[in-house]
């Protein structure tokens, strides 16, 4: 479980996060949604420690992550897997080397054990046999899947995903969403997904937090979202005619 308590983040004079408190549950797909500039990615970066919050605290399984220094954070970070918006695969390494990278640094496994783990992770994301390819030889969807394989290589307890569907076709987007949802259950992870893709929201949103102007505006599940009377959330979720039509059928 991850708890965020009264988080503020300011860049210069621009206050991006304004006192957000939230709890992300274990074994659930926790989605952070909101329009562009609402503070979704900043919040994610504050949680994982890429940004230090101006005020407020983040707790991983009750441990105060915000107050830890780099060394103290390492044991928690080895339990974190993250999929970045552009996958952030290491260009100079093959797919297999990318997946084995955290294993090389933080485990004492033999080469064969690491290879086996890499193969298992690749098979899990349906990329069996692509070990020797470089990131430049992969499509956007394949990069995302390799990113997921790398994220789960250390069997993490926490999975963070930033815009998993950006730049992907609808079919691949759904496959990625399903993969994230399956892995969340399989590893009993606390998964936090930042997205503005409505298919993701309706498909895998066990627990959704809607951010608006740097504040938590609404919280609930994908089943509750269709019946909310929150104006800003309705404007965001049902902005398209397609979604309006879908809402009328619900």
């Amino acid at each position, binding site marked *: 479980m991850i708890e965020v308590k009264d988080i503020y983040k300011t860049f210069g004079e621009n206050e991006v996060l304004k006192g957000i408190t939230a709890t992300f549950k274990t074994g659930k797909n926790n989605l952070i949604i909101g329009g562009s500039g609402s503070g979704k990615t900043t919040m994610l970066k504050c949680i994982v420690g890429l940004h230090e919050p101006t005020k407020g605290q983040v707790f991983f399984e009750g441990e105060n992550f915000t107050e830890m220094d780099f060394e103290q954070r390492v044991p928690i970070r080895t339990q974190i897997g993250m999929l970045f918006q552009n996958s*952030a695969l290491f260009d100079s390494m093959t797919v297999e080397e990318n997946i084995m990278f955290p294993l090389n640094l933080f485990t004492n496994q033999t080469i064969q054990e690491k290879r086996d783990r890499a193969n298992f992770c690749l098979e899990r994301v349906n990329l069996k046999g692509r070990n020797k390819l470089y990131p430049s030889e992969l499509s956007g969807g394949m990069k995302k899947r390799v990113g997921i394989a790398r994220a789960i290589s250390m069997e993490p307890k926490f999975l963070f995903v930033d815009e998993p569907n950006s730049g992907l076709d609808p079919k691949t987007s759904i496959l990625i969403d399903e993969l994230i949802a399956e892995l969340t259950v399989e590893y009993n992870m606390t998964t936090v997904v930042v997205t503005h893709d409505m298919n993701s929201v309706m498909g895998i949103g066990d627990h959704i937090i809607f951010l608006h102007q740097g504040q938590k505006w609404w919280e609930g599940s994908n089943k509750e979202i269709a019946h909310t009377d929150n104006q800003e959330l309705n404007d965001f979720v049902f902005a398209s005619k397609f979604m309006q039509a879908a809402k009328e059928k619900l």
Partner: protein
Amino acid sequence: MFTSFGKYILLLRLSFKRPEKFKVYWAEVMREMVSVGIGSLGIIAIISVFIGAATTIQVAFQLASPLVPLSIAGKISRDSNILEFSPTISSLVLAGRVGSNFASQIGTMRVTEQIDALEIMGVNAPGYLISPKIIAGVSMVPVLVIMSICLGITGGYIACLAGSEITPADYVAGVVDGFDGLTIRVALVKAVVFGFLIASICSYQGFYTSGGALEVGQSATRGVVYSCVMILFADLVITRLML
């Protein structure tokens, strides 16, 4: 300027923190050494031979007097190569070739979130990315400078063979006459310092890149310009202190 200098010092401190696993870092050091050393052999060889040849011809031309023995041209050419041309010119060229590579490589990793990915995994990103480059710079630039000195002197000999300003025998006599080991020590100290400056300044510029492709290019340019200026400044200081 003081803020940047402070950030530079802090980054260097982080770069030399205890690595998570020596084996992984060692592999990176080897990779960088090959990139800096083997990768720069060609360009260093070419400029060294040409500068050595041109220096010898110019010195011989300027000393064309019956009162001055021709072998002195070989001596001046040798000392100029050892003390100035090989360490300084080679390092300026290396700042362009290696430094821009370091800055753009790290800068690209920054803007494509690869450095964030390292940090999320719990890896000390400055240590993993910058320390192997600094070690490669400090160890390989002296090797390249020694090679450059040898090739520069060989270039002078080739110029003597091809021209008529000075005979090869006079040149060789000048090269071996009154050789002082201090000049080699000065050249090596310069090479080590220049190697450190190139790797650290360019890595710093790359590490603090923000934005996109345009900013990566600007970081690489800044890295090369700042390293060149610092190389020339350090050249003056080392020369003043050691000679």
